[in-house]
């Protein structure tokens, strides 16, 4: 099964959200959670990034690359970076992978490489 991360499109006004919210930020009118899920595209542009040296407890790596990417449909996402020397404006391509493992649970998210 191919894993996806979904954005949510309002059935009333067409506004696309990521992440999910209960009431549409576009029309403010959608009171009934009437959104259609849409898989996020994988290709995008790196807007900004950091290399984190002070890691949260669950991460057994020396450093962690994190960035904000604008995907080709205009939606922005925060993700992990597997890029040695990132730069702002770089074209990147994402894959859905395990991004955090806790004792009994694994979390999937978007991991970006250089396109």
């Amino acid at each position, binding site marked *: 099964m191919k894993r996806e991360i979904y954005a949510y499109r309002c059935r009333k006004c067409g506004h696309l959200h990521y992440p999910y919210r209960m009431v549409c930020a576009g029309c403010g009118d959608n009171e009934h959670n009437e959104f259609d899920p849409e898989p996020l595209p994988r290709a995008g542009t790196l807007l900004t990034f950091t290399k*984190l040296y002070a890691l949260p407890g669950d991460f057994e790596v020396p450093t962690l690359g994190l960035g904000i990417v604008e995907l080709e449909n205009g939606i922005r996402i925060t993700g992990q970076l597997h890029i040695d020397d990132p730069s*702002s404006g770089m074209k990147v391509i994402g894959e859905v992978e395990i991004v955090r493992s806790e004792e009994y649970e694994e979390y999937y998210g978007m991991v970006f490489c250089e396109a």
Partner: protein
Amino acid sequence: MRDVYAIGIGITSFTRLEFPLSEIAAYPVMMALKDAGIKEIDHLYVANMGGARVNHQTGLASAVVDTLSLTPAGAEVIENGPASGASAIKQGFLAVASGMHDVVAVTGAERMREVNSIEATEFVATLTHPLAEYIYGVTLPSLAGMFTRAYMEKYGVTSRHLAMVAVKNQNNALLNEFAHIHQAITVEGILDSPEALTNNPFIADPLRFFDCCPVSDGGASVILATREVAEKTGRPLVRLAGIGQATDTHCVHEREEPTDLLAVRRAAAQSFKMAGVGPLDVGVAELHDAFTILEIVESEEVGFFKKGEGHLALERGETQIGGKIPINPSGGLKGRGHPVGATGVAQAYEIVLQLRGEAGKRQVADPKIGFTCNFGGFGNNVVCLTFAREN
């Protein structure tokens, strides 16, 4: 609405404190009551973010009101992330302004050093979006790092400007006996020297160790009351003249312009409007410099300087204690420390002290209007306060 005055202030040392959280919250109330010359209050508001998670204590306000022997006064905890302090002051203001209470105590307290730094960072990271940020390992320093890079690339801010904020605020903290960090640093020492990579390592590139506030324990308190009560104290009258609050998207990536802090802009504008003053009337300000970049950007967003020019004003020395608009004479979060729930109240403590002319070696020359910006989350919930000296 009735006018509301800050009639008493108190603070603990900001450091590692080996006392229970309830005592860290209670001690500055004792000091503030003594400062105001009163013994009774109608209500107690306690600002705290991590008591339940970090210190395994819930119902903190009940513990604090009891240890102070102030029962049966009403008491409750206000949790609004790192903006809990100013939020609690706002609740106290509403209670007095509405006529419900005449005298209320507001105290903010946090005991974060009961756990190690990884757990403390993890606790603060629970502010982030659980599914779209937290799972990736996003922490507050990493959001600040990404924000800093975008700001540097757009406006020409450099690591040197960031270091100048750290040096200014740590120098100010040397004049504050309650500050956490008492260490003189220089831009050369933390950026250019051969030891810079070890004494000032990267935390979230481009942010380094000296760009981030310390993890602190501490408490601060302010007593709010009506004009009638305030006049009886015989102390300088300091009125809480304006309050503004605004929110922004939970996820930082959803903000249209990644280098804007719209909640700061909106909260400050509301606060000034309510007080009937403008940003250029401000004589002393305490801004939320959890990361050095934030002092620069907030100084622009609240209207002290044009967008993109805060670092130039910093270069010209305008934010020093003797400058045009002194920012963080207390040392700020960087120098005084950042016990998250206490910070907003500690900012108000400093402004009241400055407006009364009681700040000693770090006293700013005769300020009449003081301003605080308390920044919750990564700018998703911001509370700004404007204080005015009346006599």
